[in-house]
């Protein structure tokens, strides 16, 4: 649905400052009907990237294809027409304070020259969809943040777009309202088959509704893939720092103190076993102790849910010699589970 190829964006130097490299070497491919999340810290280039999709930001070089159309090759008039099929929602809603809820949602249709009678038949069902039918004649100033964002969503959907771009749409909302808005987006994605690209700095948003995710830093996409894979096996340290707080892959502080990177006298290896998908129920632990006679001292265990699939981590201390532990690692791998040696546990009284 959306293909970005080799996108670069540099803002020219201004007032003696150096030029700003906002985006570099961006390659992204977003499938039809996907909810694609882009996460990164402030200044990473998320907004700039999102805005290149509807060409609010012209890339310095590279290709932007939306639904098979090369956006960078369009004339101004063609671009305006193309934008009718790309909806956008914003962190600060950007509703017209001078227009009622109904008239705000009607705006994109008015701009496209849709007849008045037809506008009504489009706007009213949309207000129902976002649950604001009773607020139709209210002004934005009379709405809560969550309600304003619902208006923003209805407005973005009015021109029946194929793509919805969301720039931090929940960042100004409290956690509960955030969840409601995210569920609304997920619902719209399912019902209308809409492709959604959303940027956020909150990993919880990604975890909640995204299918795929790209992690940005310093204008680069440092990691991308299915949300489940990125959460289960984050590779880049930045990705790890995003994922760790919501997926408890770590170990309690009290045990961390006993962990050393090198084996010491009387130490035992500490393993982290990750269970993913339906394999979470595989009784591998008991298989290890039965078949290898290896005792596992369980330090920490946790099961999370990412995108509806269970994801578990188990941190264990293996009380056995190197050969037996090696065999145990192989056995875990044979069961297609993830395993890594975290370090070596020194005796408690060390």
């Amino acid at each position, binding site marked *: 649905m959306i293909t970005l190829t080799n996108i670069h964006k540099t803002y020219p130097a201004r007032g003696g400052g150096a030029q700003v490299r906002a985006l570099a070497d961006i390659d992204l491919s977003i499938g039809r009907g996907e909810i694609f999340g882009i996460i990164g810290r402030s200044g990473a280039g998320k907004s700039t990237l999102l805005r290149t999709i509807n060409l*609010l930001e012209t890339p310095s070089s590279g290709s932007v294809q939306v639904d098979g159309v090369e956006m960078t090759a369009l004339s101004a008039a063609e*671009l305006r027409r193309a934008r009718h099929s790309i909806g956008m929602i914003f962190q600060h809603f*950007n509703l017209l304070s*001078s227009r009622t809820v109904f008239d705000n949602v009607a705006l994109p249709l008015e*701009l496209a020259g849709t007849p008045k009678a037809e506008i009504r038949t489009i706007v009213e069902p949309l207000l129902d969809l976002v649950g604001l039918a009773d607020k139709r004649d209210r002004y934005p100033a009379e709405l809560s943040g969550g309600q304003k964002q619902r208006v923003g969503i209805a407005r973005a959907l009015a*021109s029946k777009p194929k793509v919805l771009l969301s720039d931090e749409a929940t960042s100004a909302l409290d956690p509960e309202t955030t969840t409601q808005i995210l569920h609304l987006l997920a619902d719209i994605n399912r019902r209308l088959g809409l492709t959604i690209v959303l940027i956020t700095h909150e990993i919880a948003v990604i975890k909640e509704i995204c299918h795929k995710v790209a992690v940005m830093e310093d204008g680069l996409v440092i990691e991308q893939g299915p949300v489940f894979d990125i959460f289960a096996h984050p590779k880049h340290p930045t990705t790890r720092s995003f994922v760790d707080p919501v997926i408890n892959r770590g170990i309690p502080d009290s045990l961390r103190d006993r962990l050393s990177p090198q084996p010491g006298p009387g130490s035992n290896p500490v393993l982290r076993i990750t269970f993913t998908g339906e394999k979470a129920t595989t009784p591998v632990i008991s298989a290890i102790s039965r078949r290898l006679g290896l005792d596992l001292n369980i330090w920490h265990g946790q099961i999370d849910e990412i995108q509806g699939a269970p994801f578990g981590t188990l941190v264990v201390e293996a009380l056995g010699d190197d050969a037996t532990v090696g065999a145990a690692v192989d056995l875990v791998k044979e069961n297609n589970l993830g395993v890594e040696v975290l370090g070596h546990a020194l005796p408690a009284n060390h």
Partner: protein
Amino acid sequence: MLSPQIIDLLIKGLVDTLHMVVVSGAIGTLIGLPVGVALAVTGRGELLPNFAFNKVMGAVVNMTRSTPFIILVVAIIPFTRLIAGTSIGTTAAIVPLTVAAAPFIARVVENAVREVDRGLVEAAQAMGATPFQIIRKVLLPEALPGIVAGLTLSAVSLIGFSAMVGAVGGGGLGDLGIRYGYQRFLPDVMLAVVVVLIVLVQIVQSTGDWIARRVNKRNLKS
């Protein structure tokens, strides 16, 4: 008490003043509104950036704005004659008043339009709006409370200016105050003129405030 004759003069003065203020205000708005919008949207990083236009137009506006009004009246006498056929009287006074009002209004409109949140323009652009649609459907309606407040300010200033053209034979309340109150030394006429002017300004200001509040949907408290 004021004699009926003086009361007649007061009424005529008021009518002349209103005539000058309304006509010059209306023409000034007709010119100032589009110029103000043009100044706002051609600025750097705005909707239709145009450095040359913005600088030239800005300079023209500043030129008239920085000339003291009384100098302006005298300086443009040939122009006034050309337009009005004469350089004295109420109709002639409308010319310098309009020349002063238009750039003033242009600046207040420009400010009001600039106040509109950039995010709204961006949202409209994302919807595929043309620049003209953005001006008509976003910038003007959103700037309306500011524009109304600015026009009120302009009307009040025009009342003051119109009293000043009285000094150069422009007619109206200012003329009355100077000729009767000052030159013939009739303090009660002077006082009456001042009171009428104060009341007039009050009415204009209150009406303007009321309209501005009516069109402002940004903070609905009622």
